[in-house]
């Protein structure tokens, strides 16, 4: 954990290569431009091959989620006519779904005979929106609670951290399942709230530890000595230094939310079964596995794996890029 981060000042990175620009050949010492912390991080991130690969993977999946449903040849909400046998195989049962073919590259589902590619592409939207939405929402709650506890300390810190202790001792998957089933009501918005409401405590603990360390840094004391108010100290001096570990933790938590949400929906406790999500796609597939239908469960799951892999690579890259102690 990056708890003892030293604060960064713009351009103070000694390992910074001297940027060549403007075509000037002489006076290169004078042309030393200071880069801000985000520019430095971006430089480091670009050099992290796996991270770049992961980001491209994740962004591609996001792009597919946005435009994919308009491109795929079938409409998710229009049911195909039932068929007795798969084309070219008179012995097969059409109700078991048909294996991948040119017309249906991922095969078709058992029962309703939907195109699996269409199901996967349509499922991306809700799965990603829930993953990103719940993580960002949890990060906001975590930042507020952790910031208040870490900055002000005292009884407020004690109270908030006891709440965090209780929530962190919950057997989290059990509680997510129960709450989604009992309070979710099948709507994806309430699932976002459930995951955010149960996901913020670890982020709050992270932010609190950062605020605790930063609060006693010399530059904060200096700011306080010249009469800067609490609000400005928090937002101008502490928060910018605490934000990068929070970004990394939030990014990585998206992957966790996507997997857990898929499991919750798979059990029928999450998003309503008529809505396309990856979890719902897998939920329907289970009944047809003993009949030899492997393609229906395989492709929605692969979509989850690729998304999670992309996010994990991206998160690792961000961690290295945003950590001021890592050298490049």
């Amino acid at each position: 954990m990056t708890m003892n981060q030293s604060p960064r000042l713009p351009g103070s990175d000694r390992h910074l290569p001297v940027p060549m620009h403007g075509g000037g050949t002489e006076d290169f010492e004078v042309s030393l431009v200071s880069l801000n912390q985000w520019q430095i991080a971006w430089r480091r991130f670009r050099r992290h091959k796996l991270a770049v690969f992961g980001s491209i993977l994740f962004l591609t999946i996001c792009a597919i989620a946005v435009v994919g449903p308009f491109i795929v040849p079938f409409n998710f909400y229009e049911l195909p006519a039932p068929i007795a046998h798969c084309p070219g195989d008179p012995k097969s049962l059409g109700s078991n779904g048909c294996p991948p073919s040119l017309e249906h590259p991922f095969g078709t589902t058992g029962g309703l005979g939907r195109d699996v590619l269409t199901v996967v592409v349509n499922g991306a939207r809700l799965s990603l929106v829930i993953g990103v939405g719940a993580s960002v929402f949890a990060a906001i709650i975590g930042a507020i609670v952790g910031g208040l506890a870490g900055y002000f300390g005292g009884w407020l810190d004690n109270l908030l951290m006891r709440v965090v202790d209780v929530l962190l001792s919950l057997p989290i998957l059990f509680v997510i399942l129960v709450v989604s089933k009992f309070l979710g009501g099948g709507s994806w918005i309430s699932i976002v709230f459930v995951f955010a409401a149960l996901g913020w405590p670890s982020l709050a603990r992270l932010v609190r530890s950062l605020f605790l360390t930063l609060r006693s840094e010399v530059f904060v004391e200096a700011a306080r000595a010249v009469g800067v108010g609490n609000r400005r100290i928090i937002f101008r001096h502490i928060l910018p230094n605490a934000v990068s570990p929070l970004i990394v933790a939030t990014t990585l938590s998206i992957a966790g939310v996507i997997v857990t949400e898929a499991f919750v929906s798979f059990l029928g406790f999450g998003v309503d079964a008529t809505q396309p999500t990856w979890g719902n796609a897998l939920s329907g597939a289970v009944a047809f596995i003993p009949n030899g239908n492997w393609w229906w469960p395989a492709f929605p799951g692969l979509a989850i794996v690729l998304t999670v892999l992309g996010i994990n690579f991206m998160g690792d890259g961000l961690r290295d890029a945003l950590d001021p102690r890592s050298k490049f």
Partner: protein
Amino acid sequence: MAKYIVRRLLQAIPVLLGISFVIYFILLIAPGGPLGRFTQNPKITAEQIQAFKHRWGLDDPIPVQYCKWLGVCGDKPFLVNALPGGTISVAGLTVELPGGDNGVLHGDLGYSIIDGRLVTDVITSRFLPTFILATTAYVIWITVAFVAGVYAAVKRYSLFDSALTIVNYVGYSLPTFWLGIMLISLFAAPPLRWFPVGGMWTTRTVPTFGTDAYWKFFGSQPISALYDLGTHLVLPVFTLVLVNIAFDSRFIRASMLDSLNQDFVKTARAKGVPERTVIFKHALRNALLPVVTNIGIEIPFLFTGAIVTETIFSWPGMGRQFILATESFDYPVLMGILLIASMTVVLANLAADIAYALVDPRVHYD
């Protein structure tokens, strides 16, 4: 040390109370509830529903229900109710404590709303299957992760090390439940059909697990009983092992690398100690410290993993029971399982801290 343990145990009490309070409220403010299954039945009258509610105490206000569940409010006076039930023996004298069978503080978890069985019976009948599955998987994954992690650290940057890194990245990204589904699809479904699709015993040839008939069968034909259990164990155990090896082997590798870079290892090498001794006696013993803690903290994950694998493989354990109870709004069973799971989390954290102090002389608690 003893003082520290007592203090931590005392601190765990408010945490557990808080947890049970939070969960109880979540359960009972939910719409629907156990009465939902009656709404579709035209034969059930409003009086019958009212009687059902009264019978289960569902018409009390939520705080009163919680208080009764806890065993503080009840038919007896407050202080008597707050005492733990059962008997104690002091110097040969057996004393009957007041309290008895009304509430968690008296060791009573209530009755299942769905089938009226004692919750403690429901849970104990589900405990052994979960225990068998979880411990088998746990022992295998810790052993494999340990050997692989240490070997990868000793042979750093070797082919094995890189292969392990890739396996870890993939294993880390694999959703447990999907892995289980795909294993069934590959090895239990046609054309291979090597293993059963799910369950814990072959229903046609073996009696129901846990019954007297089963143990009789187990006694008369231990080999075929174990073989039958084994074939049902392979896929769920493999699922748990593959997913959990990823994190653990990485952790053990990092711990071992850290230990190999310590000064005392360099000193040992400089003295001419054989490499084998350096690795196993000097480095490994120190690398074990964080690993021991981690193993303790992971015990609650066994429960979490149990929900997923037991659901996918219809394994008749506590995780499966939990899902069934959630589907039927069976509050007492849910509260019982959640309470046990929360206690496991709290106690495992405590056990990890104590183990850390026991194995690392540098750690002092007071």
